[in-house]
């Protein structure tokens, strides 16, 4: 008996293994999305999208929850993006390799791995109770901002680090200040990566139920101010399912959430691609 399998055969086997891994991943994604759509699509119509909930969401629409989701996610992104990008610029352009930098990076990585329910508890203790903001769009949005922050920070840092150092040199050599260089060359060149990070952070925020569970309240109305309580889609889904109110509407809500995330992802990917092509002349 031969001591080894011929490399040619090993190659064929490995080709198969890699192909299969790829196909299985794709299949899992398609099955989940397909199943959600299959269960949810029958409920989704214009009335469901634009109507108010009736009887605690047993019937009627989910419009207030769609608006709640948009509001809290928007707050999260608006707060976390400047902070995250600012910290990334500091880490990659200003700070050397010192203890503070290591601490910030470690802090950010740890923040990224903290379970969302703990963010929720913290949001309750800090925003809702200590700062007396109450259960509101603002408390929920700020809690989600904390969650999105590490994602945005690390993606931005990687993106800024990866752009060619010679761009910054060229700018400084023309007499630009450091700020001009960052603002006019470094950030535009790393914008595709930063945007991807923002979208990932946004995806984390829009899909989150646990972090808003204790911070946003559970109102059934469209929030009209930052201080109003609200009910983002994942939270509504969670309430519908755990309290056994309506599984059909839970699937319908899930479908709307999945479609919203798909739209955001596809639209930004297209925009980022176009921007990159324009920038790199291809």
């Amino acid at each position, binding site marked *: 008996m031969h001591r080894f399998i011929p490399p040619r055969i090993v190659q064929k086997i490995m080709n198969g293994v890699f192909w299969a891994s790829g196909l299985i991943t794709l299949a899992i994604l398609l099955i989940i999305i397909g199943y959600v759509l299959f269960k949810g699509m029958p409920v989704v119509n214009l009335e469901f999208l634009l109507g108010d909930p009736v009887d605690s969401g047993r019937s009627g629409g989910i419009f207030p929850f769609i608006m709640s989701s948009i509001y809290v996610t928007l707050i999260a992104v608006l707060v976390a993006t400047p902070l995250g990008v600012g910290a990334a610029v500091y880490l990659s352009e200003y700070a050397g390799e010192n203890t503070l930098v290591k601490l910030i990076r470690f802090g950010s990585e740890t923040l990224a791995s903290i379970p969302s329910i703990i963010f929720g508890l913290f949001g309750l203790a800090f925003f809702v109770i200590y700062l007396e903001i109450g259960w509101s769009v603002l408390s929920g949005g700020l809690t989600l901002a904390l969650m999105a922050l590490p994602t945005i920070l690390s993606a931005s840092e990687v993106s800024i680090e990866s752009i060619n150092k*010679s761009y910054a040199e*060229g700018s400084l050599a*023309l*007499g630009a200040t450091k700020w001009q260089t960052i603002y006019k060359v470094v950030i535009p*060149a790393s914008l595709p990566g930063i945007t991807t990070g923002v979208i990932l952070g946004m995806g984390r925020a829009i899909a989150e139920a646990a972090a808003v569970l204790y911070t946003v309240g559970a109102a059934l109305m469209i929030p009209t101010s930052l201080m109003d309580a609200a009910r983002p889609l994942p939270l509504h889904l969670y309430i519908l399912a755990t309290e056994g109110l309506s599984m059909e509407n839970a699937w319908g809500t899930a479908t709307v959430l999945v479609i919203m995330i798909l739209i955001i992802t596809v639209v930004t990917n297209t925009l980022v691609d176009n921007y990159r092509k324009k920038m*790199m*002349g*291809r």
Partner: protein
Amino acid sequence: MEYRIEVENLNVYFDELHILKDVSLKIPKNAVTSLIGPSGCGKSTFIRTLNRMNDLISTFKMDGTVLLDGGDIYNPKVDVVDLRKKVGMVFQKPNPFPKSIFDNVAYGLRVHGINDKDILAQKVEESLKAAALWDEVENILEKSAMGLSGGQQQRLCIARTIAVEPEVILMDEPCSALDPISTTKIEDLIHKLKNDFTIIIVTHNMQQATRVSKHTAFFLHGEIVESGLTDKIFIEPEDKRTEDYITGRFG
């Protein structure tokens, strides 16, 4: 002879490494000066001292004086931004910004506060013409500079530099990443530019030094072995080490 830059007893250190040792050199006005010497001899460090790009390296230390038009550029009162406007730089590898061709040339002007559309358009055209690139890019000014060839990119970087009207242009091996035809174009360009600018070019190519420059300084191990008229250095060098280097015995 009139000198644009006068360097006296310049010492440069990175941490404990003594890179430039007691270097003195005078750079004549509106002429081309070549800096030659083997890799690691301090040529690049030397020109990066002239526009204070070394300031960006935290371990950089120096003593001695560097005078530009008689003024000490390391005087604490000197605005580095202002200095770099007067002393432009073209890098070894073409480094256009990932922006349009127009925006690349307009960059320095905008940074220095010029935003008038007509003035920008006029200056961009002038600079691209001066860099012998206008004819090739006239109709694609809005396209990304990243789509140009390496030689075109380098001429764009020269256009970008001359747009802010510097007095001195430092060129750090500007042709080392280019093919022979692009190299010829850049050399022709240098000939044209020397009437208006003081040019200092670092090169590894001996023929290039003889073709483009009137003056040459030969660096070895962080010191200037010999400097003077290019013809003199290449035809009858005074120092044995210069002769060995230019005849290809080492380096």
